[in-house]
Structures are given as C-alpha cells and as structure tokens.
C-alpha cells in the first residue's frame, strides 16, 4: 500500500469515529490538546491506581461533570467516580466546558479535600446554651425546617417580612434564590457585593448600563489590567488562559498594581502606583489620546451622549460634534503626565510609553478592573469609569479584542416560573443615605441595627462569613450575639466558619459536587451555561437508579440546596394561602412539589436555544445532555449588540424623541435570556424604549437613559453629585494629603491564587501550600522602624490593632504595606474545624474586644491520615477585624484601604493578637455617613433610587417612592397583597 492510500485509510477511520461522536486521537496528544479522556468513554474509564504503585492496579471510573463552587467563574470539573465504591476519587477539568476548556486552578481539584474533610458538617445542628458558646446538638431536618418555616410564616402573616433576610457570600448560581425571595414577597436579599466589586461595577454601570466588563483578551493588541487577574483572586483561570493567549499572539500587557503580583511579573509594563491614584494616570492617558487626535472620532460621534452634555453644560455653544471636540480637549487638559507621575509616584517616562502603547491598540484594547483599586479607595468607582473611558475613546467596545459589557456575554435562562417583585422597600439593605449604591449596604448591617433602624427575626447566612470577611467583625459578633436584634440565625454552610459559631442552626449544604445550579459567566465574546450537579446522583442515574432526594447520595445528611428551599417554602406555606407555594409546584403534576429534575429539565428544554437539538443529535434529553456534559455553548461569537438594527417587528407606531431615543408600541420580544438589564422608562404614552437613532439608523444602543454611552451622567448630576457627573479623579481617603506623615497605606485585599476565599481551612492541599499572611513592607520602611523579616509588628488602624510578622520585600512601594486576604482563620474552643484554624480566646470589656491565640494549629488524629502530618503552626492573622467601615457615598463600596501606623510589637504582644474598640468603629461609620447625600434631600423626583439602576430583587415601582409625612410604606399583610404571579421574569443582578 502506498503512503497516500495509508493516509486515506486513517482519514476514513477518523471520520467514522468522529461521526459516532468519538475521539480518534485520545490521550495527552499535542495534535489537538486532547489531553482528556475521550467523552465517549466517560462511562467506563480505566486508569491505573496511583496509590497502588508499583502494582499495576486498574480502576474503573464514571466521569461525571459538575461546576466548581470554589469561586464564581464556574469552571467545569469532571468527578472521577469509582465504579466499585461509588466514591469520588478525584476532580479534573471538563474539556467540554467552553469557559475553562478543561483547565483548572488548584482550587478545583481541591474540592476533593472538602468532600472528605474529617471535620465537615454532616448533620443539622442546633445551638445548646447561649449563642456563640459553641455547644450544639444534632437535630433532624424536619425539626429545623418546621422551626424556621414557622417563624417565617408568622413574620409574613404579621406583616413583618422586613425581618426576614437572606445574606449570601458565594452565590454560585444565577437567580434561583432571588426568585425564591420574590416568591416569598421578601425584599430581604443581601449580598456581599459591596465589600467586593460594587466599586468597579458602578463605574461601568454609569457608562453603559451594565455593570461588569468582559474583555476579549485572546484577540487584543493591548491588554490593560487594573487587578491581579492573571494569577490571583477568583475568576482568574478562565481569564488568565486568555490573557496568555493574547500575549502569545503578541499583545502587550500593562498591569497597574502597587504590589509586584504574579500578574505584574508577566507584564510588559508594570505600573506600581500609589493606591488610589490610578484614575489620575488613566485620565492622563485619555488626555494624551485626545490631544494627539488619536481617538476614534466616528465612534465617539456616534455613541457618546456628547449632545446631551453640550446642551446641559454648554448651552451657550452650538451643540455640534466639532464644538464638542474643542470642549473635549479641555476636559482633562490638566491631567498631564507630570501630574499623573506626581500623584502616582510612577515614572513619568513610563506613563508616556504606556499611553503610546494604548494609542496603538485601535479597537483591540482589552481592559479589566474588578476589585483592586476600585475596591480600596474612596471614589474607587472612578477607576473603572476612567478605564472604560479609554475603550470608549478608541471605540474598543463590542469589537474583536475589545471590551464587552457582561450582559452580552452571559446567558441566564428563563426559569420555569417567574414571581413578581416585592411591593415594599428594605431600609436595612437599601438605606436612604445611599441612593446610588449599586448593591445592598450589607456591611453596615450591625450599625444600622444598632441605630434602631430595624431588627431581624430570621437571618440566613448562606456560604457567607461576615464575622470574618467583613470589616469590623466584632460589631457583627455584637449583633449576632444579641437575640433581641437577631431572633434566629441560620447558617447554611458546607464548612465551619466564624459566623456559624454565632448561629442557632448550622445546616450542612452541598459542595460543588453535591448541589444543583445553573451558572453562566462572561468569559469571552460568546455565551455559555454551566450545570452544577450532585455527581453521585448523576452516577446513580447512569446506572439506572432513580434518586428523588439528593440526601440519599450525599455524605451524612448534607442537602442539595434547591431541594431544601423548595421544602422550606412548602412548610412556610403548606396550603398555598400565602401565595408562595405555587412557585414551587410541579407543572406536570398539579398540586405536587416541584422536583429539581423538573425544574432544570424545563429550563433546558425551553430556555436554552440549540440545546434540545444538540441533545437530540446524541439521542439524549436536554437534561440528560447537561448531566452528561455539564456545559453548553449557546452562542460562540457575540458582536457589537449596540449596532444591531431594530427589526421591523419591533417598530410599531414609533416615536423618536428629540434626544434620538426610539419608542415603540410593539411588545418586547420574548427572550429566553433573562440576564439582568436596566429597566428603561417608556415615553409616558404607552410606548416602550426600543433603542436609539444614530444617523438615519434605528439601533439597539446601550441600556442607559440616553441609549448612548454616558460620558456625562445626568443621574449623578441630578442626584446631588454634579461635580462627579464626568469621569474624574477623586482623592482617596488614603491620598497622601489625607494621611499623617507617619502613616502608611495598608492594602488588605489581595488574593493568593491557591486559596478559596474563606473556605480554604478544610482544603488541605491548598493550606499546605499557603497558610500565612505576613505584612509586605519595603526595605526603606522596614529600616525606618527597624524591623527585619519575621519580626513581629503592630499595625494600628483607626479602631484598634493587629500583630503580624513582617516580610521585607521590594515587591511593594515604599509608603505602602500589604497583607493578604484569606488567612487568620480562628475558632473558639470546642467543636468545629480543626484544620487550618487557630483556637482563640475572645475577650470583651464593654466595647473593647481582644482576640488572642490560645493554641496554634498542629497535627491531630482523624479519619484522614494527612491531618497527623500537618507540619505548620502559623495560620496567619485576622486583620479585617481591625478595619472600620468605609462606605463610598456613591457606589456604597467598602473602601478597604486603611491608613495605618506600623511599629515594632510592644512587650506582651503576641503573634495574631487583635484589639478593637467597637464604639470607635461606630464613630467612624458616622463620620462616613456625614459625607453622603441622602435621597430624602437630593432625590430629584421623590424616589429612593434612580429606577434604571440595576438592583437585585427589584421591588415594584411604587415601593421606590420615598415615605411621606413620616409614614413609611411597609409590606402588605397577605390578605391585602396582590396576586404575585406575573409573566415578567425577575431580573437578578448577578450579585457575587
């Protein structure tokens, strides 16, 4: 046979194999990166048992996909379920997942540690004795459910809905719980987002009506990151792999980071700026583009709201684009490179080079800011706003290699039932002082309660640990320990945490391989959904068994969360009289409980375009397809949606107002994608907003009041902040002029890539790699206070101090110190997590609190032999306890950076010591409250909040009205409540 014939023979065999849905070249082959078990063999995959070495012992696995729960980026995992023992033996990447593409960070495989953690919570626990004393008894799910449901039912019947609150840390899902709360008629959703990403979200939201960036790193010419995305934090795996792809194709990488992060080490330009000065640099870059005429004139002309800006701010001048361009040249003319260098401490020459590189990007500029500077500083939201300005100048919006708004790259399928919105306003989460706060003022809760603004009867913390994570944790302890303020605290958590010690019930929830969720994240210019599932349930399904209650396949009595909420709702409203139950009833079998199979089966069949067809091609139902592959790409490539022509079908009795906004009487087309978008007002005559006129074309535009990108924000202008209506530079609370000469800035927000937020203590592999958080300090500063690496230092904040170990390094700017997030986990004596936590004593005298380590971490005997091999004792320092709240008056974001004094430790100081005065922390809260511009004094229209701003569990419109004559509208008793069913889907905000 000649070579050509041989080649044809192989090609034919390959085509036949692939037509059967099989893989012809399997294994870690460089041919097409197929270093994964081929999917047709996922039911019976054979590997040698590494632990049996040198014996060659074969093990047979079922490979079942799920979605990682250890951060929010929703990477795919494949659980290796041993066919013999039906236990998960390892987790690897899911090559069928379009976001993570089979790659994972260390946190994914470490799910196994959490599953087999000898200290994990396996049964419902109820407090015995006083709250916070650490004594528990095991109770049945029935007892817990009846108790909790009874209290909620009573609260609802008595019109006390506002006393029920659900507070989420790691959502890991898109909208289930928001809709559940809406079904309960509860405006009690509380997220952690204001200690996380609200700052960055705000800057994006005011520009484009969407609150999150989705950069197309892979195709970028220039990548500009104001974060440590490439290496740290969560989200980093899907982004980092695409940043690296961009770099491999020749993209330049610019990183702004005060600290020499792993990301910075990969950069072509590392800009180490003084914290909070980032907008000054970005405005200097923008000014350079403007003064040198290297911006995209056509894009600016078409898509900026320059006309509105000219009419409002320069009514004396002709509102032409040419005149606007003259004004544009003056807007940031004083932001010279010299000034930017002076503000930031960065080298002026390098800033010029950075600006030149940005100028070469054209429409291929991928930028990103999430936490970092936006989460650290007063006015941090201007960081993302001034960053977006660069994309807006270059027209790099919705372009290949440019920046997309998140909502364009995300798919949230319409659910089986959509409750209507609550009809009242929760003042504890949305106080009038913060009308523009993008998310709930969650971290102020103890102070709001302390001021008598309300109390809680049932408070759920769900995979959330505010005592540890939030600033001012001792104020949280004071609130949680007070049974008059918090009647019942239910902690839903897969692992022990500091907050759970102050609960009445600790309810064991599933880990990433033990729960159902649908999840979608903006990762690239496409749209996908991921499916998280209890993998042992799916494995038993494959073996022909039916599992009705997931508790049958989870360890102990750990429960799948959706089943828990459905059951709880039925117990709150057993006869349906409260109008809640109907949202959790089967469609197929009237009067019966909705099952998770029906819930997800309906969504996959009805709300995910293309999925039923893809499933049918393999002879599967859509649910079976998702249980088999774990993810589905709905759309591979998304373009510039703002440029889409409005279709004829949407144009009925059209009206175009003088600002070019297009209104129509045609109803909004049904969309299976209910990704949150701002609700925009109609024309008052019954027409809805459909788009915007640009030139002669009627286009989709952006979901903003003007339909354009908003350089100038009427919302900010009208709600009391006219001086901030344009992107600008606000001096941070840690700007040099706001600090004493002996103070340093403390950066406390940075992440370690192999840690899971506050859930690493039971991930032994991760903890062994990283378990402490020394204070980064520059040699200049270290010399000034005469400390060396490992010396103890006392770090004094406004309200107290903590004692840490110094790490002298040139990886941080002089004048700045840094201490990583994650570490310093603790437990009180008694039960709880032994791994990764120190045992501490909490002392209280009035408002003075002290935390001192009583026993360091050490080895211990357990079912896992590795716990006897723990060789480290240092678990780090819990610094967040010593931070007062710093709410930004606009974004509502907690401004994490602190002005601190760093000294040598005093005699008697012990490593890990924390000392705080909560009276002082309340005073700091009040100081920051004074700089707010509350709605009751600044609202232009008598409402609490601009209606178009995104908001989770958005209440009905009347609830937006400010209370009048001292009477505050509260929730209606059920008898008065309207029918809650509605065809309109709820708009979850995607909080995380």
């Amino acid at each position, binding site marked *: 046979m000649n*070579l*050509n014939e*041989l*080649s*044809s*023979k*192989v*090609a034919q*065999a*390959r085509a036949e*194999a692939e037509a059967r849905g099989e*893989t*012809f*070249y*399997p*294994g*870690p*082959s*460089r*041919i*097409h*990166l197929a270093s994964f078990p*081929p999917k047709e*063999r996922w039911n019976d995959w054979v590997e040698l048992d590494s632990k049996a070495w040198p014996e060659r012992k074969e093990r047979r696995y079922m490979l079942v996909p799920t979605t990682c729960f250890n951060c929010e980026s929703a990477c795919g995992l494949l659980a290796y379920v041993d066919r013999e023992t039906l236990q998960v033996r390892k987790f690897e990447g899911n090559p069928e997942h379009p976001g993570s593409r089979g790659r994972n960070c260390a946190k994914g495989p470490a799910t196994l540690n959490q599953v087999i953690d000898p200290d994990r919570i396996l049964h419902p626990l109820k407090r015995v004795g006083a709250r916070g004393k650490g004594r528990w008894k095991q109770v049945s799910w029935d007892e817990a459910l009846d108790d909790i449901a009874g209290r909620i039912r009573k609260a609802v019947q008595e019109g006390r809905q506002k006393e029920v609150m659900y507070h989420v840390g790691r959502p890991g899902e898109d909208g289930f719980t928001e809709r559940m709360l809406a079904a309960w008629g509860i405006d009690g959703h509380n997220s952690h987002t204001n200690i996380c990403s609200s700052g960055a979200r705000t800057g994006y939201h005011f520009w484009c009506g969407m609150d999150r960036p989705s950069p197309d790193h892979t195709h970028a010419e220039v990548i500009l990151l104001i974060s440590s995305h490439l290496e740290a934090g969560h989200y980093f795996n899907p982004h980092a792999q695409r940043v690296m*792809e961009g770099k*491999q*194709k*020749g993209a330049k990488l610019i990183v702004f980071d005060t600290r020499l992060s792993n990301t910075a080490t990969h950069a072509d330009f590392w800009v180490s700026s003084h914290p909070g000065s980032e907008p000054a640099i970005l405005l200097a870059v923008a000014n350079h583009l403007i003064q040198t005429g290297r911006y995209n004139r056509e894009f600016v002309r078409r898509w900026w709201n320059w006309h509105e800006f000219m009419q409002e701010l320069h009514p004396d001048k002709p509102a032409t684009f040419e005149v606007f361009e003259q004004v544009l040249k003056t807007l940031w003319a004083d932001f010279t490179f010299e000034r930017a260098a002076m503000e930031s401490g960065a080298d002026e020459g390098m800033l010029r080079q950075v600006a030149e590189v940005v100028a070469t990007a054209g429409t291929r500029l991928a930028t990103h800011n999430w936490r970092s500077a936006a989460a650290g500083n007063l006015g941090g939201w201007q960081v993302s706003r001034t960053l977006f300005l660069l994309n807006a100048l270059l027209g790099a919006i919705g372009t290949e290699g440019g920046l997309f708004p998140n909502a364009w790259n995300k798919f949230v399928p319409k659910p089986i039932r959509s409750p209507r919105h609550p009809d009242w306003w929760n003042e504890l989460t949305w106080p009038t002082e913060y009308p523009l706060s993008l998310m709930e003022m969650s971290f102020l809760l103890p102070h709001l309660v302390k001021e008598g603004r309300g109390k809680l009867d049932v408070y759920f913390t769900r995979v959330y640990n505010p005592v540890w994570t939030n600033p001012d944790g001792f104020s949280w302890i004071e609130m949680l320990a007070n049974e008059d303020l918090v009647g019942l605290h239910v902690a839903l958590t897969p692992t022990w945490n500091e907050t759970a010690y102050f609960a009445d019930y600790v309810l064991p929830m599933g880990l990433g391989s033990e729960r159902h969720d649908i999840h979608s994240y903006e990762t690239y210019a496409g749209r996908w959904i991921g499916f998280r599932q209890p993998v042992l349930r799916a494995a038993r399904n494959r073996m022909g068994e039916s599992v009705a209650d997931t508790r049958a396949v989870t360890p102990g009595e750990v429960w799948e969360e959706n089943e828990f909420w459905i059951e709880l709702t039925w117990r709150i409203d057993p006869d349906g009289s409260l109008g809640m139950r109907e949202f959790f009833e089967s469609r197929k079998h009237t009067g019966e409980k909705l099952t998770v199979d029906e819930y997800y089966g309906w969504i996959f069949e009805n709300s995910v375009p293309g999925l039923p067809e893809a499933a049918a091609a393999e002879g599967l139902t859509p649910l079976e397809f998702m249980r088999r592959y774990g993810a589905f790409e709905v759309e591979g490539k998304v373009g510039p949606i703002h440029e889409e022509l409005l279709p004829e079908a949407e144009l009925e009795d059209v009206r175009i107002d003088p600002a070019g906004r297009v209104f129509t009487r045609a109803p909004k087309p049904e969309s299976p994608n209910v990704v949150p978008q701002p609700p925009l007002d109609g024309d008052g005559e019954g027409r809805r907003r459909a788009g915007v006129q640009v030139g002669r074309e009627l286009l989709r535009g952006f979901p903003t009041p003007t339909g354009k990108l908003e350089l100038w924000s009427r919302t900010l202008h009208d709600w009391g902040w006219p001086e901030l209506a344009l992107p600008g530079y606000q001096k941070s609370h840690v700007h040099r002029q706001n600090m004493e000469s002996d103070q340093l800035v403390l950066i406390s927000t940075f992440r370690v890539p192999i840690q899971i937020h506050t859930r690493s203590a039971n991930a032994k592999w991760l903890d062994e790699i990283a378990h402490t958080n020394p204070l980064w300090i520059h040699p200049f500063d270290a010399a000034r206070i005469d400390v060396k690496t490992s010396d103890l230092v006392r770090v004094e904040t406004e309200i107290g101090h903590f004692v840490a170990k110094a790490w002298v390094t040139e990886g941080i700017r002089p004048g700045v110190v840094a201490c990583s997030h994650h570490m310093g986990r603790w437990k009180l004596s008694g039960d709880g997590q032994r791994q990764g936590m120190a045992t501490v004593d909490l002392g209280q005298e009035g408002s003075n609190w002290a935390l001192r380590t009583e026993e360091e971490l050490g080895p211990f005997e357990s079912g896992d032999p590795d716990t006897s091999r723990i060789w480290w004792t240092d678990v780090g320092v819990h610094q967040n306890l010593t931070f007062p709240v710093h709410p930004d008056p606009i974004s509502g974001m907690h401004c994490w950076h602190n002005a601190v004094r760093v000294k040598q430790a005093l005699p008697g100081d012990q490593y890990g010591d924390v000392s705080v005065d909560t009276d002082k922390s309340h005073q700091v809260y009040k100081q920051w409250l004074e700089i707010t511009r509350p709605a009751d004094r600044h609202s232009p229209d008598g409402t609490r909040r601009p209606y178009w701003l995104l908001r989770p569990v958005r209440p009905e419109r009347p609830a937006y009205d400010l209370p009048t004559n001292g009477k505050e509208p509260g929730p209606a008793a059920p008898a008065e409540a309207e029918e809650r069913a509605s065809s309109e889907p709820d708009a979850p905000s995607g909080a995380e």
Partner: protein
Amino acid sequence: MPELFRALGALAGPPEPGLRRAAELLELGPLPDETEHTELFLFQLPPYASLYLGAEGKLGGEARDRVAGFWRAVGTAPPPEPDHLTTLLGLYANLAEAARAGPDPAEAGLLGRGATALLHEHLLPWTGPYLSRVSELGHPFYRSWATLLKAAVREAARGSEHTGSLPLHLREAPDLPDPRAEGGEAFLDGLLTPVRSGMILTRADLARAASDTGLGLRAGERRYALQALFSQDAARMLGWLAGEAEAWVTRHQGLVDDTEVQIAGFWTERARHTATRLAHLARDASEAQLCDGP
C-alpha cells in the same frame, strides 16, 4: 497525506490505548509499553527541533522562538511546545489539508507554501539523523514508526516545490568550538549540540563510550556524564569521539537522498569537521600525556 502525518504525530505521544486503531491501520505492530515511550522520547531522543537545530543544543531559546515565529507567520498561536515533533507534524497536516480545501486559490497557495516551508525549514533539517537514531534505539514499534515517517517526509518533500537550498539557520550554525580558543566548557557544550558537532550523542552513546574506553560512567545528565569521562582520561575520550564522528560521517552519507542533498551535505561536512578537529585534539592530548608521563 495530511492524515498520515497527523497519525504519526499522535503516535509519538504516550501510547494511549485509544491509539491502537491508528497504529493498527498503519501496520506498525502492537503499541509498546509506556516505559518504552519514556525511554525513547524522554531519556534518549527528546523530539524537539530546538535540541537538534539550536546553536545551544538545548530546549527552547532562539531555535524554539524561530519555530514559534513560523506558527505566528501562518496565523496560528504557537502552542506551549511549538517545536515538538508531534506539534510540527500536526501543523504540517493542518496546513496541507487547508491548502487543499481552501476555497480561495490565493489563500490555498499561501497555505501550501507554508506547508512546504515548514517541511524544508523545520522538519527535513533534523528528522533525517534524528529518525536514524530512533531506528537504532527504539522499540520495534518506534523503528517501524521512524521508517514510515522518514518515507512520508521524503514523499512530501518530493511533491513540494522547493529550491532545495539550505535553510538559513543551518547555513549560519556555528561549528564545534575549539577548546584551546574557547575553553573546555564551550567545547563540551558543542559536542552535545548536534548542529555544531554533526553528531547526536544520547545517554546510551555515553554509556557505550564508557564501556568502550573502560572509563567509569557517572550517573547524571549528559553533560555531567561527558565531563566526568573527560576528567578521567581526556585523550582516550577525544579518540573515542573522533571515531564516533567518523562513523557519523558515514551515517550522514548514507542518508543522502534526492530530497535532502544539501541538508545531508551539511551534516556530513559538520561531522567531518568535528572528526578532524577531535583527531587533532586527541593526538595533541596523547602527546601531552606522553610528555607528562613518568
């Protein structure tokens, strides 16, 4: 023959059971054990172009950058190991296939030229001597594989339009350093750098050297082992290496084919130069030993 290249590329990867069908179709015999694969491709003859064409004789560096640049030039992001034989064969298959399937004749022509350039710049220059060593050191499966791959490369070269001129990186490759001028360290590195010495010295060869010369073999990476051999008896090692280089001259002459006249000529000359230099050095060293003798 794109699929043949792709399949041969895949078979240079670990012998996964899933590859049985491809092996069977190519009549290469049963898949070998993983240890055979490891021994050949990890310990003896790692299949990276940069090892055989780079002036440092090491993985990566300018030689790998050159190959990565080629990937970019044909519009494909280079993978983490752009110069691995499997990757290169896969790329060749893709280019050849795209050149045939392309609807636009101009683009198809461009891709076809890309495939030809890949073959003549980055495959032919090293696969001749490389595969000849695989045929000696490998498991029978890999010997058959090497024979088939050599035939496929030659067949593809015959069918391509190419001037046959020597690639620039071979023309500019420096020869074996003279230890008297450039020092012993550079000389040792040069001996282990195929493009400079004209020889591929594997771990197995060094073991043979120890056995032939009666010197002790120190376990370690090749450079360490070679240095240890020299430290025991430099003259004897130089003599052995001179003989080895002579054998490489003969080997390269045997590899001359109408598709690689220039390339085989380059390798022959390189080995001949090395043989001459080593013979001189051996003679000088023996004389020095005699003078220094008791």
